[in-house]
């Protein structure tokens, strides 16, 4: 099997006590973050960056991925027991999960979701293990024209798939591209948009922006409209067993959700939340009793939860193999890798194979840890969700402040974080998606660099880009996809995606 020797070596790395500890801490924090409505995985990962540095590159990456992955597990617990989605990817789980809890099947739902998430995570990891190294090898042949066309393709996908209004999506993406290039030009050394001699010379820190947009904005939202804590359905350990019928009905949706989630994770701009909606929709279409969805169907709980776990690992494939983040959370992870002086992309498999394989092996372990952690401690995690916002918000605020400050010890970053928070709050109110901004901040310098190198390579001509098959393929795909989106939006302009479910 491909990579068998490497993965064994990876397990040897993953069983290092520091890596095991990082994995456990990441999974635990991720689960708590998934449970809490005030803090999403993106902000939580950004806040964990200073601690990840203390752990070292491999353990740091494992810690951050554990947070991301654990959040997907944790979100389902409160969706089922309290009808509060801890993060966006668990919204769909509320529909049938909470209904199962009301019918006294909360334990069964939690057990099936935990097992389904574990299966999805394991299958997706096998996919990552199989596809990432060959993709990395193929990407070694990519030159600047290929990367440039891949980014153009990503921009088209991102703008079309994020949010309901394409113009707003592109606006936020362009704003991110602009913020990404603020600072000293890396080639000519010219300061650009620095507003003075020293203020923005080092550029705008991505982490401060991410914490602001995803952490502070959420705090403001909760402060404005705090929800009263809801009653929790009590679940004991001995209740955590599904009956034979429920197990039988959950097998195929779990497998379908896993595969669908993994492949949807590969698409730029699609968050795990979108994968859960698609997965739920698919199960509803395939079911003999679609009218019963929303009343506590097992299929409607396990399929979306499997899909979101699959999607998280799917999103790691382009990040690790190509070095291109397709989601805001992946952008934060990439930023974390750079802080550890590890460059994601094709060279990762040659320069730092231990990091990649140790990471993959640790993800297998983390997946298992989460299964073990979530089932017995389900009662404690569900109680965390009932913490009042009056207590939670000051704690999260202080974590955002201290966490952002401790990354570069810069008070300017705190200013950026606060302004990004207020900005993010208003963006949400006006319907502007904030994820493209974060992705744009990462892709901006990369796109500019590849544009310059491409023009240099072709002596100022753009036509030769069409003679390169891979680059040509990406550009043609971008045009075809845009035409498809345009045609489809003309047909279904009157209905929203959620309504079509």
């Amino acid at each position, binding site marked *: 099997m491909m990579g068998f020797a490497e993965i064994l070596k990876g397990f040897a790395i993953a069983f290092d006590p520091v890596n095991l500890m990082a994995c456990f801490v990441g999974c635990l924090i991720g689960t708590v973050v998934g449970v809490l409505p005030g803090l999403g995985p993106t902000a939580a990962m950004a806040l964990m960056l*200073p*601690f990840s540095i*203390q752990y070292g590159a491999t353990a740091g990456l494992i810690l951050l991925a554990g947070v991301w992955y654990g959040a997907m597990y944790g979100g389902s617990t409160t969706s089922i027991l309290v009808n509060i989605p801890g993060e966006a990817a668990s919204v769909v789980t509320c529909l049938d999960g909470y209904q199962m809890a009301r019918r006294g099947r909360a334990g069964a739902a939690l057990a099936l979701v935990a097992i389904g998430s574990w299966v999805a995570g394991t299958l997706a990891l096998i996919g990552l293990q199989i596809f990432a190294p060959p993709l990395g090898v193929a990407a070694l042949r990519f030159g600047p024209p290929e990367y440039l066309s891949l980014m*153009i393709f990503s921009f088209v996908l991102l*703008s079309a798939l994020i949010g309901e*209004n*394409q*113009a*707003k999506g*592109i*606006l936020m993406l*362009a*704003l991110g591209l*602009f913020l990404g*290039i603020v600072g000293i030009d890396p*080639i*000519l050394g*010219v300061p*650009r*948009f620095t507003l003075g001699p020293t203020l923005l010379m080092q550029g705008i820190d991505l982490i401060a922006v991410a914490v602001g947009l995803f952490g502070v904005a959420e705090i*403001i939202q909760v*402060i*404005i*409209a705090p929800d009263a804590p809801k009653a929790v359905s009590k679940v004991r350990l001995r209740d955590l067993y599904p009956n034979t019928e429920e197990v039988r009905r959950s097998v195929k949706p779990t497998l379908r959700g896993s595969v669908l989630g993994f492949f949807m994770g590969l698409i730029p701009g699609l968050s795990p939340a979108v994968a859960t909606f698609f997965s739920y929709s698919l199960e509803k279409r395939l079911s003999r009793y679609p009218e019963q969805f929303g009343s506590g169907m097992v299929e409607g709980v396990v399929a979306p939860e499997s899909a979101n776990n699959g999607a998280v690992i799917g999103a790691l494939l382009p990040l690790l193999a190509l070095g291109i983040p397709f989601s805001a959370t992946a952008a934060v992870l990439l930023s974390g890798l750079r802080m550890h002086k590890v460059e994601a992309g094709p060279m990762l498999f040659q320069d730092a194979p231990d990091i990649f394989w140790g990471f993959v092996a640790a993800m297998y372990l983390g997946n298992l840890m989460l299964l073990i952690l979530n089932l017995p401690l389900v009662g404690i995690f569900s109680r965390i969700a009932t913490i009042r916002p*009056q*207590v939670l*918000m*000051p*704690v999260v*605020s*202080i974590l955002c402040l*201290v966490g952002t*400050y*401790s990354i570069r*010890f810069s*008070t300017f970053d*705190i*200013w950026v974080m*606060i302004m990004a928070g*207020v900005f993010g*709050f*208003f963006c949400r*109110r*006006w*319907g*502007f998606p904030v994820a493209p901004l974060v992705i744009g901040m990462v892709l*901006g310098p990369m796109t500019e660099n590849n*544009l*310059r190198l491409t*023009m*240099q390579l072709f*002596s*100022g*001509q753009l036509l030769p880009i069409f003679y390169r098959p891979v680059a040509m393929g990406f550009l043609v795909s971008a045009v075809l996809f*845009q035409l498809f*989106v*345009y045609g489809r939006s*003309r047909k279904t*302009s*009157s209905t929203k995606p959620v309504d079509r479910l």
Partner: protein
Amino acid sequence: MLINTLDSGFHLSARHRQAGVTTFYEIIKNISTVNFQMRGRSLLTRLWQWIRCGAAFSFSIAIMGVAVAIFSATQLGFGTKAEVGCGTFPFIVGVALAITGYLSGISSFRPEQKKPGLETQQPPRSFRRVAYTVITYFVWLLLTPHLGYIPATFAVTIAMAKIAGLEGWIRSIALSLSVTFFLYLLFEVLFYVDLPRGILG
């Protein structure tokens, strides 16, 4: 990107056509009259409506985009075709910002679209809370270099708990003590992160 923006433009026209509007000129002409029934209202009220539906934000970004494009073209320079200058990419981004800012500003007036900002009326007290929260962030920022992060965190957490509406001073102080102690353990004892200690240094 150009195709995207063009698409948005056509898309917009089609939608407005459904609403009985035929050209872009008519959309602009009808913005202030059809969609928000602003006829007869003062300029200030209109401006407030533009801010609330996000149009003002979009148009501000469009203006910023124009400024970025002009600055890039005039101050940074395009270089040559083979040696692309440091103003080329910002120029492209500036143009994209200008076009998409304009299009999204126009789309904010779509008659069929409900804006979250217009649907929910928040009590002014809530917005005051937000303002106080942001102010406490700045207070933390100002206090930390002088007092150190421990006293600053302790004071600011109490303030935040009261702003968030936590009843009783004892609870707020207890929460603040717990948070400060937790941060101390995390940053000083566990991870040796060198935060400013101020008067406790």
